[in-house]
């Protein structure tokens, strides 16, 4: 071909010489925001992170990513009240992602496949004693062990697990699951000594431990003064659940009243049913929506035929009968007596009015401050006694398994830092990936995969597990409902919607902005489904 006509005919792609990036007044920046699930998780799980791997069907990787923060997903997948799901942005699109069920699936899969934790590569030579093998103690032991410390747990009970074993009924948390996840921590090198009640802290240090972590659970049922006849049969819920687990279930009779509105009350009522009570009645002074029990617990209890007496207080307990007074809520939402009374037949009354920790171990320890039944700790979770740290039910805060695991993790970090003569600082929290930053158009509509359930009628008289797990297929789909809030999930939208081809898709599937050509229109940020792109003012 001869020479091209001057100016009229041009060589293809020559506009690459025109760097339109100079037009820009704002530039797009990829960001990682804190997904609400992660934000809400008391155990500090990177939920979005492990769901990301689960979405790919890479379950082991997902499990490994999960267990960076929480060593007991099979337990957590059963008993966690999943604040992550309460916070989940997807709830505003259709239904919350079934994070908890995917977690349980991963935990069960790990047990089935025999996945083990990677052992630490080096040893620090430091020894840490953990007092109590509940969620908090196990969590701390696990994290300390992974950091290379030698950890021993001393447990006063016969078996490890604390409230997980002695407070949560087996129909919610099968014991083989506890055993498996505890064993995995033991396999990491953690020594657990049962029937080994610690009574002397200074002696422990003399034994050669460099630090002590206290994680004693709240095993003592709170008593309230209720006028009662001599022959009235009154139990506390914690003891009832503990004795049931120990194989010595109490005699309750045919009609059982449980007093209280928390999760333990529901557990007690449901356990009573399973122990043979024809009728289990929950009496609570406020309304259902004010009850501290999680809604799902109340729902499952109702499904099992538990009767609820809301807005009621117990005034007097006698053999075979309980007098209750009706309450009504004042304008502030507090229950006030009405003077109306009623009598319920009851063979026994189970009090579920809260729990306390046994703090005798540290009551007289110099420097340790106990206030309102809990131990005061510094920012680094250390008590007033150098080298003694505490978390879980013993310290102020939420008393759930998940909070315990989170507390154990944090304590482990502080202990580790302290052992090194350092201080652990919580990394800066990224900004929240709020719902208004999402472009939910791009998420296909889907309902949450319902965990199959045993028939309510069948489950009421057995301790079989009520809630069944997901199949691998269900778990995959459930994981894929995750909107990956605030974190890129490689959907190619930015790459596709840029009118200037100024997004580079790298071989690993991640992206980079080509600022030579980006005009700063903001389409990538606007169309990013998960809000992982910010527009920042161009500083010239």
């Amino acid at each position: 071909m001869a020479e091209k006509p001057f100016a009229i005919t041009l060589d293809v792609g020559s506009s690459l010489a025109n760097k339109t990036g100079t037009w820009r007044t704002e530039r797009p920046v990829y960001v990682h925001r804190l997904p609400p699930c992660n934000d809400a998780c008391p155990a500090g799980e990177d939920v979005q992170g492990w769901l990301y791997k689960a979405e790919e069907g890479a379950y082991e990787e997902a499990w490994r990513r999960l267990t960076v923060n929480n060593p007991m997903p099979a337990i957590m997948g059963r008993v966690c009240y999943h604040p992550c799901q309460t916070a989940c942005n997807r709830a505003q699109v259709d239904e919350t992602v079934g994070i908890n069920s995917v977690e349980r699936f991963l935990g069960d899969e790990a047990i089935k496949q025999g996945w083990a934790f990677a052992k630490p590569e080096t040893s620090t030579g430091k020894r840490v004693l953990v007092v109590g093998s509940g969620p908090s103690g196990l969590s701390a032991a696990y994290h300390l062990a992974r950091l290379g410390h030698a950890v021993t747990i001393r447990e006063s009970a016969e078996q490890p697990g604390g409230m997980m074993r002695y407070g949560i009924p087996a129909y919610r948390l099968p014991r083989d699951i506890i055993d498996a996840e505890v064993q995995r921590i033991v396999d990491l090198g953690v020594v657990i000594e049962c029937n080994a009640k610690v009574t002397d802290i200074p002696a422990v240090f003399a034994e050669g431990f460099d630090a002590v972590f206290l994680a004693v659970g709240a095993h003592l049922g709170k008593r309230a003064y209720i006028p009662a006849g001599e022959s009235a049969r009154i139990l506390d819920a914690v003891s009832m659940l503990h004795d049931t687990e120990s194989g010595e279930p109490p005699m309750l009779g045919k009609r059982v009243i449980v007093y209280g509105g928390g999760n333990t009350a529901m557990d007690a009522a449901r356990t009573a049913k399973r122990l043979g009570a024809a009728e289990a009645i929950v009496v609570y002074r406020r309304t259902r929506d004010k009850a501290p029990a999680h809604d799902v617990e109340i729902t499952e209890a109702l499904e099992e035929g538990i009767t609820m007496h809301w807005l009621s207080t117990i005034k007097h307990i006698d053999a075979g009968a309980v007098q209750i007074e009706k309450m009504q809520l004042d304008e502030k939402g507090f229950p006030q007596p009405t003077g109306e009374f009623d009598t319920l037949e009851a063979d026994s009354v189970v009090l579920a009015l809260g729990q306390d920790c046994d703090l005798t171990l540290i009551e007289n320890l110099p420097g340790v401050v106990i206030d309102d039944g809990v131990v005061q700790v510094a920012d680094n979770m250390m008590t007033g006694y150098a080298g003694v740290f505490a978390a879980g039910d013993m310290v102020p805060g939420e008393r759930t398994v998940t909070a315990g695991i989170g507390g154990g993790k944090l304590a482990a970090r502080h202990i580790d830092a302290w052992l090194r003569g350092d201080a652990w600082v919580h990394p800066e929290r990224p900004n929240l990936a709020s719902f208004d930053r999402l472009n939910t158009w791009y998420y296909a509509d889907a309902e949450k995969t319902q965990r199959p359930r045993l028939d309510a009628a069948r489950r009421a008289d057995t301790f079989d597990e009520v809630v069944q797990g997901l199949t691998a297929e269900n778990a995959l789909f459930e994981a894929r409902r995750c909107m990956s809030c605030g974190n890129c999930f490689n959907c190619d939208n930015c790459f596709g919607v840029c009118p200037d081809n100024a997004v580079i898709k790298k071989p690993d599937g991640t992206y980079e902005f080509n600022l030579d050509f980006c005009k700063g229109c903001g389409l990538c940020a606007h169309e990013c489904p998960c809000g992982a792109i910010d527009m920042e003012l161009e500083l010239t």
Partner: protein
Amino acid sequence: MTVTPLKFYQVGSFAVGNRLLTDEERSEQSNPNRVNALTSGHRACQGCGEALGARYVLDTAMAATDGKIMAVNATGCLEVFSTPYPETSWRIPWLHSLFGNAAAVASGVATALKAQGKTDIRVIAQGGDGGTVDIGFGPLSGMWERNDDVLYVCYDNEAYMNTGVQRSGATPPAARTNTSHASGPEPGAHFNQGKFLPLIAMAHHIPYVATATVADLHDLEAKVKKAMTFRGARYLHILVPCPLGWGSRSDETIMLSRAAVESGFFPVFEAEHGVMTSSKKIRRRIPVEEYLKPQKRYAHLFGANGRPDIVERLQRIADHNIEQYDLVEKGAEE
């Protein structure tokens, strides 16, 4: 034990790509080796819908034909911003002649290729709404009636944007342009004027007619691919928001395309041999107001001196579209 049946859900069916999908299931735009028929360095405004639409169409067509595409371009924004001497943003054989003759020039290219026996090479003509529905309509109608083997693509931004936003035959009623000012008792473009070219295309009984937007890439790409399976004249009418002419934010180009569809104001459908064969159902229906409000060209309809009566008339157009083009899934809005 009962199990709730699984519903299909995947981000990939709406987003450009998805790492979980196979390459075949992803859009061509997600392909890191896509052609980029219109490459970087072009001078389109920030957030230009037409630049986006053109790349979507041509990259898909290139993929569908093993890279055997020639494009003819009408005068207009797309031409001006892509080929100011000494630089061109095109990476495919491309020819610009005049404002009103793209269809005829494309016919010429296609006819030459036929005479040369190179029918494996396919021809795409493209232009804006002015070059298509107005000044270029004669040659376009000629191309259609002859059933020349050309895919004509109209990037409809609903006015003459290149010349500074004047009304075209595709400007919707009540829209402000610089020749349909938002003044007087009937502000903006007049009602009962303008034409919807896809229907006129269908009246030519050509093999394939479709509408699309830059908001639904998968739909757009499927239509381009489908168009390339036909021989003869084909017409693709793509709504491409123009931040300049519409008075919208540069990052709202895709959002507005989506709103146009979800309100029913712009019907997305396809037709073969003069008969409508399918329409894209509205997924989350919105009132036209949600589509109109972010656009300054409709600003006179809202606010203290707003014209709810005109908004209502525009809503009726959307309602009529929904009826005429069957845009709502049966039973979905009971």
